[in-house]
Structures are given as structure tokens and as C-alpha cells.
């Protein structure tokens, strides 16, 4: 469950605000596509929701305990991200110095899940994303599509309430993109999480439950 209301954001050196009064919500198990022209502020909105950037006004509540991420300090935001948010990026962003299994284990470590439970959970998830047996490989030896699946596994492994994805298929060929997206949607539905997916692809947007369009004037 994600609720955004009255959100305003203006970059430090920008002459006009990116948005001044955004409001929307995403229900549990709902997948929402966020579309809009380049530079309109989609990534910024996602960053605000994840607490990576601070909104100027408004509130963002994630989950049943309804914490307003805009008003939290940096450390609490980090803790909230660790427990409740899964992030997938356009550039795959995995840690090159950790193995595939270790990469996926990072959110579990951050949520203090006992180490004994890691193995089975990671193996099961690797199987679900089609990477059985990849656990001990190094990221440098994986293809882009495989890396993005690792990133998806990492975003889901701690069963977050909210999945944020910023053009998750932007760097993939159409066929792989379809596969990866399907995987992501399937897992999100399975876990009854809320998801907000930024995309430029009509095809991707159509696979989602609902589409929000960000324009300089606001949401449509």
C-alpha cells in the first residue's frame, strides 16, 4: 500500500518545480505503470518515494504502519527501505565483488534474517527467476538479462511491501525484456506487494493494472 499526497519537489538549481501537488495511491497487489516524457521527473518521483531525495512538501506513506517517509531522518529511511522497499534499476547495479547468491542475500542481511534461512530462500528464488545453479557465479560472467533477473531476485527476496522499478527493461532486447517483465509482475502478484514501474514502453504499460502519466502540469 503506497499513498502519496500533496507532493512538491524542486531541484536546488532549477528555476521551476518538477511537480507541485502530486497525489495518488497504489493498493496491495496492484501494479501501476508510470509513464511520461524524458526529463519530466519520473526518476525523481521514484527517488522521493524511496527516500533517496527529499520532497519539499507533501507526504508519502508506505505500508500499514503508515510512516511518512518525507519526515523521517536519513537512518530511519534507510531502515524503512531495507524492510519495505525493493528497487530495480535500468542499469543493473549489482555488487561486482560479491557472488550472485551474496548479492541476493544483502537485503536479508539488512533485515536481520537469520543466516540459516538464507540458503533455501535464495535457492528457491533463483529457481523462480530461472537462474538455478548461478549462486556461486560472479556478476562479471553474467549477461545483461541474467543480471537483471538477479536484481529482481534481490528486490523480492525480503518480501517488501513496495517494489519500485525505474525502466527495468530499458537495457534489454525486446524478447528478454518481455521475459524479465513477466517474471517481475508474476512475483509481485504472488507476494501481494504494491509496485510502481517507470517505463517508456507501451507494451510494458499495458501489462500493468493501471497507468499514470506524469506531465509538467501534474498526473493524468
Amino acid at each position, binding site marked *: 500500500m503506497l499513498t502519496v499526497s500533496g507532493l512538491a519537489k524542486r531541484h536546488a538549481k532549477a528555476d521551476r518545480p518538477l511537480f507541485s501537488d502530486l497525489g495518488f495511491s497504489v493498493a496491495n497487489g496492484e501494479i501501476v505503470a508510470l509513464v511520461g516524457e524524458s526529463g519530466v521527473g519520473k*526518476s525523481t518521483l521514484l*527517488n522521493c518515494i*524511496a527516500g*533517496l*531525495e527529499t520532497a519539499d512538501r507533501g507526504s508519502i506513506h508506505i505500508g500499514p504502519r503508515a510512516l511518512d517517509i518525507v519526515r523521517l531522518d*536519513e*537512518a530511519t529511511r*534507510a*531502515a*524503512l*527501505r*531495507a*524492510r519495505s*522497499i525493493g*528497487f530495480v*534499476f535500468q*542499469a543493473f*547495479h*549489482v*555488487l*561486482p*565483488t*560479491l557472488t550472485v547468491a*551474496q548479492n541476493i542475500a*544483502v*537485503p536479508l*542481511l*539488512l533485515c*536481520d534474517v537469520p*543466516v540459516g534461512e538464507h540458503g533455501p530462500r535464495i535457492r528457491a528464488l533463483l529457481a523462480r527467476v530461472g537462474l538455478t545453479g548461478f549462486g556461486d557465479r560472479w556478476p562479471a560472467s553474467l549477461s545483461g538479462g541474467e543480471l537483471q533477473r538477479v536484481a529482481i531476485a*534481490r528486490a523480492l527476496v525480503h518480501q517488501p511491501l513496495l517494489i519500485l522499478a525505474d525502466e527495468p527493461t530499458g537495457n534489454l532486447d525486446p524478447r528478454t525484456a518481455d521475459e524479465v517483465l513477466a517474471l517481475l509482475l508474476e512475483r509481485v502478484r504472488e507476494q501481494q506487494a504494491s509496485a510502481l514501474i517507470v517505463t517508456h514502453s507501451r507494451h510494458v504499460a499495458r501489462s500493468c493494472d493501471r497507468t499514470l502519466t506524469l506531465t509538467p502540469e501534474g498526473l493524468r
Partner: protein
Amino acid sequence: MTTLACWLIRAQFRSRRAATLLSMLAIALGVALGYAIHLINDAALADFSRAMRAVQGDPDALIAGRDSSGGVPLASINEIASDPAVLVVAPVIETRVRVGSTPLRLIGIDVFSAAAVMPGLLPRSAAGGAGGDILAGAVYASPALLDKLSLPIGATLTLMRGDQQWSTRIAGDLPATDQNDLLLVADIAWVQEHFGPTDAVSEGRIRLAPGIDAATWRATTAQLLPDGLLLRAPEDDSARAANFSRAYRVNLNVLALVALLTGAFLVFATQLTAVAQRSTQFALLGVLGLSPSLRLLQILCEALAIGAPGALFGVSLGYMLALAFTQLVGGDLGGGYFSSSTPAIVPRIAPALAFFALGCAASLAGAIYPAFLNRSQPLAQALQAGFAQIVEAGGVRRRGWLPPVLLALTAFVLSRLPPWYELPLAAYAAIALLLVVGITSAPLLTRNLFAWCAGRRLPAAQQIALQNVAQAPLMAQVAASGLIVSFALTASMVIMVSSFRTAVDHWLDQVLPAPLYLRSKATPLPQSLLDALMQADAPFARVERTAHTSLTLDPQHPAVALIVREIERGNPAARLPITGPLLAPPADRTPVVWISEPLREIYRIEAGQWLRLPLLGRTVEGFIGGVWRDYSRQFGALVISSDDYRQLGGDFHPTDLALWPLPGRDAAAWLAPYVASHGLELADAGDIRRSSLSIFDKSFAVTYALEAAAMLIGLFGLAVTLAAGVRLRARELAMLGALGFSRRMLSHAVMLEGALIAVVGLAIGLACGIAIGAILTHVVNPQAFHWRMPLQIPWAAVVCSALSTLGAAVVASHYAARRATRLPLARILASA
């Protein structure tokens, strides 16, 4: 959470083996040097105290003359013995004699009173029993002496002093004396009878009645004593030895600290580049929910993972170094404060832990700034653009010149301050500040200079290199700061040592006017020789005689040397290297003394003042006619003319001769029989000069080793930072490659960058080095050691070492450049 930390640390060590290992080694080196110096000094001090106690026993108080040639009159000893608070006074006569050419101490004791105060000196007869033979005129030798002379107990021995000789028998040994002591013990009456004086002893060692507070008794009794006598606590000697070698020890420790500091610097360079390299990774971890404080902690943990093993290794290495050093050289560390014995190294837990902690702290200190950068980096931007943001954040602000100028002014003020606790601590602080000034001004210089250069028309590769240095001032600063620090320290040491050496050289010229010098080893010269020298057929144009004794001016300080010389009252400058004003002596016959620079500084007295001298059992007022330079007697020395000394009633027994042979006469052959039969030392001025300079060079050898280590570390720092910079800019370099730059051009650009940074580092380092050299020469040396000398910059040596460092820096950047050319361009571009 610890699992994640461990994974990251392991990954870091795996991917940056060389840098990590180097940082560890540098920390280890600093800790090892510091710990070794501590262990050796500790052992030498303990050894000194133990040897002191063995001979001195464990009295509650000691009474002695202030003037080493005088003594304690028997009347005073009897008076003290009659004090009801005194249990026993053990009188002692100590004198120096020779056996063959071995000088040794002959101690006359009274066995009965000695048993109560100085059990360590009690003799043991070969026949068994406690040495009844002693009253019959036999002597007892310490095991070390028996060893040295290779004589058995029971052998007959000839003791010599001046031209007198006595034969006696060794009746037994001294089981409780120290392994290094060359001692003979005899009955005090026997010593008095043969060596005099009959109405005085050298010292009385006092045991007080039970229940008497020693300190109070000493304080009240001291008031009643005649002027020439001194009552002191037995601890004084060890405490003084500790105090007076303190400045030297602190100085060595500061050098060890420099090694540790360079270690901290390497950790800084490693961790800063590590943070820069992994900024995307840490941003990602931040996005995944790693809190800012944990991101900070991670960098500190990594530093600790470098520091702890390094410090542990350093502590064990320091122990081994100390062991090896004392086995090979002895406990003196080149300062000349302790006799060269082999003290036992005893490691204790607390100091070992302290040095371990110091190593860890140095490593942590190096990581603090990188850790804060890692905490405060903006996640979203870092994830997109990597380190670029951090460079911006660490960039140069508008009024960048203000802080360095203010710091430099503070350093100047600090260098003008007097010593604290007799140590040049303010000067050391000024030196540290100057290094900071150097480091902080580096980015200003690079930015301004290279931005200007980049404006010229240049080939593409050079243009790229210039722009890079100009626009990434933080990385340039890191790379340059290692060179700045190490070169500043090296240059300053070279300047200080060269100034000192030139001054000593010049000084030796002045204090060694005669071609030949003859001296006895602390016993008076034989009268037969002195008489023969007066004869007309002696092959000398001129002979000047000198006697050395010592005086205690202040019981808190070690005795000063009293040099009685044949010197003209009106023209001391002919023989003494006078510095400052020379005052005409008073017209009447009041004695004139000329004091050495250390004496002036320790006792804070000036030429023209009057000095109360405890001379010949009374207090004599001496006029200070001038101050002369002395580099050999650190506790101070004063010269009085033999005429003045005789007029005060002193006996002039020369111990040293300065000789001007007549041309064409073989002076050495003429002296040979005296030299051989009396164990004298004959040296020509050239030999003394050479051996003095070689001792000087030896005592600075440690510092050369440290400088070399510092330079190496600085160069490694440059190589590591450049290599890391290349990896950081991998994408940019790959893109340039894709745009048509050849690998050669890329490698040239990187090498040029290294050379430019090195030039800036060396230029700033040289400027700081000269400033620090001036502080070492003009502030630290006088404050710590009371040595003054003019500043003398050896330009040739300094410029040569700068050029060779530049060469080494180019080689080091070649190593980084090779990385640039080996980058898998295609893969880097594909992974973008």
C-alpha cells in the same frame, strides 16, 4: 550485518591487494619503530638503574662534594653519624686507576658499615667467608673485570695512577655486581693510605633509623651542611639519566611517529580511493537500506582490518628489532647517554597494547575523512554518476588561500614559543601544521597552475592530462600529499643534518688548534712526562695543559664539566669558539669562567652575570666572561684558566695535553715510551676529527633509514592513487580510446599527469622542507639538546633528491599508465 561487513572487507582485500598490503606494512613499520625505541630505552634505563643500585646500594641518602675533585671531610661524616636519626653512615672513597691500559674504578669501603647499606659491593673470599683478607690490604674484583683481564682469583695485580704503582693480590670476587661493571673493592683505609686524601672521603651513604622519614630528614639536614657539600636522594641519578636522555628519546619517538603518520596517510589514500571506486556500490547499498552510519562504519572497519594486523605485526617486529639491536649494538641508540651494555629486553603487556592501539588509531585516523565522504554522498547522484559528485564536494572553495595562510601564521607563532616541559612540543606542533599547510595548498596550486596551462594550445594527450589534474583537485591532492609530506620531512632532515654537520666541522676546526693531543683516561698524567715536556730538548714548540673535573651546580641536573685550562684570561677567544659578546674580565683577580651554550641554556644564565661555583669545598663567585660553543658536553661545561684555579687554591693536575711539535722532530717517537708504559692515548687532530664526524654520522644513520622509508611510502602512495584514478576513470579513458586515442597516447597522458602532480608535490614539499628544516635547526635543536648552529641549505643534495624523486614518480606513474593501456576498452564501454 557483520556478515555483510566481512564480505565487503574480503572483497576489498581481494581486489586491492597491493595497496592494502602496503598500508599494513607502513602501519607495521611505524608501530615497530616506536615500540622498538620504547623497549630499548626502557631496558637501557632499567639497566642503568640496576647497575647504579648494585654499586650504590640502597641508602636513604647520600652525602658528597659538589666538586668532584674535592670530597666530604671526615669531620662532616662524623657529625652526621652522631645524629640520632642516623643508623649508620658508610664512607666510600672512589678513585680511578689503571691495570695495564684498562681504566677501572677502585672503591674503598668499610666492610662493616657497607654490609648495612651496600650489600652489592660485599666481597667474597676465595677461601670462603665474607672476606677477612680485605683488612690485610687485598682487593676484590668484579667478575666482569676478572674476565676482561683474564686473571684468576689469587693473582697479583699492579695498580697504576699517574706515575705511581702498587702491587696487590686479588683475594676474591664481588658476586653481586653487575655483569658490565669493571670494579675493584678494597678496604677504605688501604685506599686512603695509597691514594689519599686522608682527611676526607668521596661519599657517605646513609641508612636512617627505622621510622625516620627520609625526605624530611634530608631537607632539614641539608640546611645545616657546609657549602661545598650536597645531600641527595639515591633515586636522583636514575631520574636524571631518564630526564636528560628524554629529549633524545622524544625526538626518536617523533621520528617513529612520522613513520606511523605516513602509514596513516597510506591508509587515507587507500581508503579514499576505495570510497571513490566503490561510490556506486555504496550508493546501491544505501538504496537497499544500508544506513549512513553503517556506511561510515564500514570504511572504519576496513581501516581497522588493515590497521589491526599491521599493528600486531608491528609489535612483534618491534620486539624482534629491539632484541636484534641490543644484541648487535647495545642499549644506547646513538645518543651517548648509556654505556654500551647489552640490556635485557622485557616486553610488558601494557606498552605492547598501547602501541597496538596506536597502530589501530593511526589507521582509523587515516580513514575518518573517507568514511565521512562515504556517509554523506548523495545516493541518487552517486548511483548515476559515480565519484564525480564527491570530487565536486571536496573541491576548492572561493577563499581557499585563507586557511593555509592562517595555518602558516599559527605555525610561525608556535615556532617562536619557549619549550614546554623542557621539550620543543610547540615546535613539533608547528612542523605538523606546516605539513597541513602544504597539503591544503596543493589543490589550490594544481587548480590554478594547470587550469592556466590547459588554456594553452597543446597536443591532445597533454591537454587531457592537464585538464584532469586541474579538474580533479581532490585526487591530485591525495596523490601529491604523500609526496609533500615525505619530501618535506626528508628535505628538512637533510637540511638540519647538513647544517649540524657543517657546524660541527667548523667547530672541530676551532677546538682542535694543535696538531697532536695526548690524554690519560681520567687519571692524572704522569709527573715524569710533564717534567720532561718542560725540558729544553722536548720536541715541542708549545704545550697546553688541561684538567677535567666536574661540578654539581644544581642537584636536579647532572654534574657539569669543569675544564681547567692554560688559557689567557684576557684572550679566551684564541682557544674557545666564543659566540656572542666577549666581556673584559674584572680588573682585580676575581675568577673568570666561560660557559658553554648548553650550560647557558640549562641554567638560564648569560655572559656578564655572576655564577656561584661550589669549588674546592666552598662557594666561589665567578664572573661569566662569555659563552662558547660546545657540541660534546650536553649537560654543560665551564672553562676556568689554570692561573685562576691555582689562585683559588686548587691543585692543577693535567689530564689532557695539546701539543705543537717542532718541525722536523719525531714527536710520536719521543712520546712512545710514555704512551706505552702509562696507557695514554695519543691522537692527531685529523684522527679526532674523523672519528668525531663518524660518530656524528652514525648517530644520524637511524634518521636516514626513516627518511628512505618515508620517501618510498610517498612514492607508493602516488602510484596507488594514480592507479586507482585510472580505474576510476576507466569509462572515460575507454571512451577516449573509442574516439581514436591510441593506447600510447592514453599512457602518455597518465604519465604526464603523474609527473605534473609530482612536480607540484615536490615544489610544495621543498618549500615546507626548508621551513621545517629551519625550525629543526633553530628551535628543536636548541630547545631539546641546547645545540645552536647556523642554517645551511645543501642545495645540490636537495635538488638532486628532488630530481631523483621526480624520476621515481614518473616510473611510478608508468605503472599506473600500464593499467590504463591494459583496460579492456570494449568491455568497459559495453557495461555502461
